[in-house]
Structure formats: C-alpha cells, structure tokens
C-alpha cells in the first residue's frame, strides 16, 4: 500500500498531467488560492496614455455609457481570451499539441509541444502569436510571442511587439486548474506583471457554438458603445 502511494506520488511529481476538459472561470479560496496579481507598472509615455484611457473609461461609465476598448466582435487573443465573462475554455491535449478552444467567440490557440521558440521578430504578429510548451514536472509551461500590438491587453494595458507571455498551467486539485500568466515587455513595462486565473472543471460539458453574427452593439464616432434597436 505504501509502495502504491509512493508510485502515485512520484508519478504526480514527475509525469505530465492530463489537462483535458472544459474549464470555467472560477475563484479560489483557502490554501489553493493563488497569489494576488502584481501591479501594472508602465514606463513613460505608456503610463500617461494608459491613465488617459482609464480616465475616459471612468468618465463614460459615470455618464452611463461604455467606452469601447476593442472591436465588439473582434477576437481577444492571448492572454485575455482565457477569461471572457463566465464562458469556459476547452483543452484538447495530445503529445505533440495542446489546443485551447474558448467558447466565447470560438477562439483557438495552439501550443506546440517540445518545439523551439522562434525569435520574436520572426513571428508574424497576430492575436495568438506562436506558443510552445514543455512539461516542468506536473506543470505545463507555455511560452508565447508574436502578439500584435492592437490585440487587447490585460486590464487594457498597452504592449509592444516585444511582449513575451509565460504561462504555467497546473491542477492544484482534481477539479481546479490554475493558469499563472507572466507578461514581460521591455518596451512598455517597468517590471513583469503576473496574475493567476483559476478555473473549475465542468464534467461532461458540451461546448456551445458561438459565432458573433448578430451584434447589435456598435461603436459611435465618440468611441461609445451603443445598442441598435429594431422597429418591428
């Protein structure tokens, strides 16, 4: 019995973990709660621009309006696609590739396992960039570069084409997944930003189609979100 427990323990410590399944954004309390997010410390002039954006968002909200920070049906991309409202993300795991499909806006990111990362300047800028993964004991470590500067940033923060995102995925409990995200950007950030997303397993959940083909919300000339009404 002791030998069996030892084998299970060592397997958990040194073998890759099955991350497959549908995972819904959640929050953790108690011993498994991750550390709080680190602050966003931006370099000038990015800080001034960020503060101005935040002020516009607050002012619009005070007027009962929403200041648009992204195109309403455009993708979120990495890393913000990982938590959009309460929509789950599905992880499909194979030895050579781990694929993450989010329900909101049907976004897809592919993590190539065991491959070498391409230099940042050689990756065509996109919403998902290029991600490579490796196992560090029970933790999946993912390196992503090549996120276009117009893709939404964490907490709306700006980023450059030199941004690098490191994620550490692990299952602290059978029902829980943590995605610790560290953003490094030598152009815009004074220091890396780290935050952890918490997910809960949705057993037997069937992902739902989400094609954004009926968006009645639009952005007016003042960058405010409006709702188009029908008259019949």
């Amino acid at each position: 019995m002791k030998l069996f427990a030892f084998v299970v323990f060592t397997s958990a410590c040194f073998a890759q973990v099955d991350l497959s399944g549908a995972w819904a954004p959640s929050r953790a309390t108690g011993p498994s709660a991750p550390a709080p997010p680190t602050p966003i410390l931006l370099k000038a002039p990015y800080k001034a621009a960020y503060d101005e954006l935040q002020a516009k968002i607050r002012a619009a909200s005070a007027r009962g309006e929403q200041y648009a920070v992204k195109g309403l049906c455009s993708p979120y991309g990495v890393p913000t696609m990982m938590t959009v409202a309460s929509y789950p993300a599905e992880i499909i795991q194979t030895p050579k590739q781990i694929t993450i499909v989010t329900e909101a806006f049907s976004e897809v990111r592919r993590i190539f396992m065991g491959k070498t990362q391409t230099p940042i300047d050689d990756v065509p800028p996109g919403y998902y960039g290029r991600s490579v993964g490796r196992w560090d004991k029970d933790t999946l470590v993912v390196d992503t570069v090549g996120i276009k500067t117009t893709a939404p940033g964490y907490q709306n923060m700006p980023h450059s084409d030199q941004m690098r995102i490191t994620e550490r995925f692990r299952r602290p409990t059978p029902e829980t997944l943590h995605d610790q995200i560290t953003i490094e950007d030598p152009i815009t950030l004074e220091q890396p930003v780290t935050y952890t997303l918490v997910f809960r397993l949705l057993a037997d959940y069937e992902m739902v189609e989400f094609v954004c083909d009926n968006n009645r919300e639009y952005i007016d000339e003042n960058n405010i979100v409006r709702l188009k009404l029908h008259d019949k």
Partner: protein
Amino acid sequence: MCKKIILGLLAACAIVAIPVRAHHSFVMFETAKQTTLAGTVTSFEWTNPHCYIEIDVKDAAGAVKHWSVELGSPSILQQGGWKFNTLKKGAEITVTLNPLKNGNPGGLLVQATLADGKKLGNGPGRGAQK
C-alpha cells in the same frame, strides 16, 4: 516567526480576484430600475453575442409601441432553461427589463413570463424569480 505564519495563512485564505473580462458592460441599462411590459413576440433571435426578443406592446388606447429586449448568449441562457425555440412569433409574453438609460424603447431582460406561466431569467442567477 509567528507573524510570518499568520501573514502566510492570511495570504493563503485570501479570496483572489480574477481579472475576468466581460464582453461588454451593462452600464447603458438602468439596472436599478425595472419596467414590466406585456406584449406579442414579433421575433426571437437565438444568436451571439446576444439573444433578442422583439415585442409589440399596446398601450391603453390601443397604440402599438415596439420594444427590443437584450438577453445573454445562447450558452448562458440554456443554463437557465431557455431553448432556441422557447418563443415563437405571435406568442404572448410579459417581460420585466432594465430599461435603456437613454429612454429608447429597449432594455436588458430581468425575467420573462411565458403564456403558460413559466418564468425564465436572463441565465443562471440572473433575475429568474421562481
């Protein structure tokens, strides 16, 4: 030493706020106010990023005013008992909504009462009063 342990325990027990992004805020709706309307469904759109109920509402004098009611997405609604064919054109319905702040005839659904008396909210934990 004890201080370190206590601080560690406090940190471990802290509720960690996760930076979840909403598709959009609901700031355009007057969430502190509710309006109830009884009318006839002209269309029910089971679409993303939101579903919509279009209804014609008659006033006491018989004049018809058209309203657009925004709901959550199909994924959210189906968890609260909605189906793509829950409403058909011509169905009678009563809706309670948070009206648009700008006064236009539209709002965010709080609760729908169907012709058979069934009550549906705007997704799980969003307004259904059963």
